């Protein structure tokens, strides 16, 4: 057994531990609790079983993207190309170029597309060492630009039925998209918690120079994280496309920023943290619930933006104050 730390008085130590533990809980946990209580008081209808489940369903695309984004953010990187990936995948699914193909093949092509973009991002970020913020953002612009100029001639149509069903259907009384969300979350959580890769991600995020000095293949880790992020984000995009059901060249652009907000609220900052995979998931639900809650009061886009901005700033501030205390 490990010898007890003798130099510090026990009481002070345990108080510090409690405080530290409290500080380490992701803000999303408190936030969700507060919101649910507020909803129970002011808008109990939001908690009715049908509506509640619908909100969970609405959270699925954001939740999936938040898991994706958390992978790169754990490695102190970021992926803002998600907006472009969404539009690109949506275009593939709805443009009709693959109308004759079975739906699963179309989904496969979309995933390959996500994989390709993720690989380009990864190359630019790890080998060229370009700033992830700028190149992924630029990637998004390029993708949307291409899709919009192409789709001007080939107009977007409907999402294949299978995908629509995945995005908005129910199975065993549970939204299918939520099942997909879980199907993404569980293996991701497992990989992060139990595999060598997961341990390396934690190490690279916690201290990149230490990771490099101690022989961890950190470039490869960041590379894989970027590819996986783009791939999982594509799944999130397909869920959204399935929910919306129609092609759009502006699909889910707000998810880019919301995913970052969800990751931070989920207790993960650039370079790891305490949220695990559950943190971003709860945060994605919290944000979706918050937007529904605001909507139910007739507060529209302005409040949504202001909340979003405020929430990110406060979460970032709390994190940096916490770091300063520690």
């Amino acid at each position: 057994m490990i010898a007890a730390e003798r130099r510090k008085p026990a009481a002070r130590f345990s108080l510090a531990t409690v405080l530290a533990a409290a500080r380490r809980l992701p803000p999303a946990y408190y936030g969700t609790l507060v919101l649910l209580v507020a909803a129970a008081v002011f808008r109990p209808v939001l908690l009715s079983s049908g509506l509640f489940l619908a909100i969970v369903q609405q959270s699925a695309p954001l939740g999936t993207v938040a898991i994706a984004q958390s992978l790169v953010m754990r490695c102190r990187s970021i992926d803002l190309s998600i907006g472009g990936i969404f539009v690109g995948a949506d275009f593939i699914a709805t443009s009709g170029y693959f109308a004759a193909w079975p739906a699963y093949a179309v989904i496969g092509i979309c995933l390959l597309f996500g994989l390709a973009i993720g690989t380009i991002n990864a190359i630019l970020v790890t080998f060229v060492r370009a700033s992830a913020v700028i190149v992924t953002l630029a990637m998004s612009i390029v993708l949307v630009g291409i899709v919009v100029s192409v789709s001007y001639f080939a107009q977007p149509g409907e999402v294949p039925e299978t995908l629509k069903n995945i995005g908005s259907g129910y199975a065993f009384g549970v939204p299918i998209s939520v099942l997909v969300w879980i199907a993404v979350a569980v293996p991701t959580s497992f990989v992060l918690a139990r595999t060598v890769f997961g341990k390396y991600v934690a190490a690279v995020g916690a201290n990149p120079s230490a990771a490099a000095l101690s022989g961890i293949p950190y470039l490869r880790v960041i590379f894989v994280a970027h590819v996986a992020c783009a791939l999982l984000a594509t799944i999130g995009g397909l869920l959204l496309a399935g929910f919306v059901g129609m092609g759009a060249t502006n699909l889910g652009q707000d998810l880019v920023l919301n995913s970052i907000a969800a990751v931070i609220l989920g207790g993960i900052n650039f370079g790891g943290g305490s949220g695990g995979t559950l943190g971003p998931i709860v945060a994605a639900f919290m944000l979706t619930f918050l937007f529904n809650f605001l909507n139910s009061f007739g507060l529209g886009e302005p409040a949504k933006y202001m909340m979003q901005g405020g929430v990110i700033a406060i979460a970032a501030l709390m994190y940096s104050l916490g770091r300063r205390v520690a």
Partner: protein
Amino acid sequence: MLTFFPKEVDAMRLRRQLVLTAIVGASTIAFVAPARSQMDNLSDYTLGGVMSPRGTERTAPNAFKKIGPYRIALVGAGVGNSWIVQSFEEAKVEVARHKDIVSYVQTNAEWQPAKQVSDLEDVLTKNVDAVILSTVTPTNANAEIEKFAAKKIPVVVLGTGMTGNYAVEVRGGAEHFGKVGGDFLVKALHGKGTVWAFRGIAGAEEEVARYNGFRDALKGTQITIGAEEYGDWNYAKSKQICQNLVLSGKPVDGIWFSGAEMTRACVDVFQQAHKPLVPMTGEGNNGFFRIWKETGMNSVAAVFPPSLPASAVRVTLALLHGESVPKHLWSEPAALTNDTYQKYYRPDLNDNYWVPSSLPDSDVKKLYAK
């Protein structure tokens, strides 16, 4: 920056512009049923009655008269929905019909007002003879329009609430559009019940006018508005709102929409919730017709002709030829009903086709074949 998070903003703008632009002159062809001969009269800027003069004001004869051949430009606000795509296509096809137009350029501002100003400047540089302009905002191009006016270059605007020094405006009656839906609901519900209203983007002039038309229709009836939401003319947002309304069990006897995408979203929600469809208002779009037919719902379609730019092309030529043209050309069509819509439904075409079109059938099939 098209894609960063404010893409959401772009999206809003897109939706807003979709309707703002598209509203420019809804007119029902139900009673127009344009005869081929009328369509073939290439100088008929009313497109066989789709458009009609509003007020008595006319342009002065020979105010913009010029010797051909002509170079004209269509300065668009942006592309982003099938109505606009079709309307641009109609303009292009219309231009091709006129041999005295030798140059036709088309720009789009990606919904950025400042870029549109630049586009107008660039078009001015290229010495065009006339401009058809669909603005991003009702006022963003006013200074530029003034420059064109100073050079006696006619500017034909497609848009609601335009204030600048344009030559002719080609648009639709928004209040009428809203009233068509309101009248339908009053009739379908026999003057009493609870309806939901799905509005467009808060604060948009067009949105307010449509909504006012709807409220006008409800006057003196016992119909109450049980829920009023801004769906932003957007499918995804409306779907979420409608889902919340349905699942929260709010009573509803009918729903008024200020745009077809929102109707489709709600129909989908009702069907997924296995809830019987209530009377809902819609719009003259093939995708909506398809759902209308598939569900057999009780509905009405306000019509919004994508051929407006075609009319604008003819107006432009008339101006260049020195004709006197009505200053305001509006389109206030009656609705398509349960009985009449099937004449316009084209099962052989996809959802992106809008009526009434001035396109030849060969073009329509090429563009919209399933």
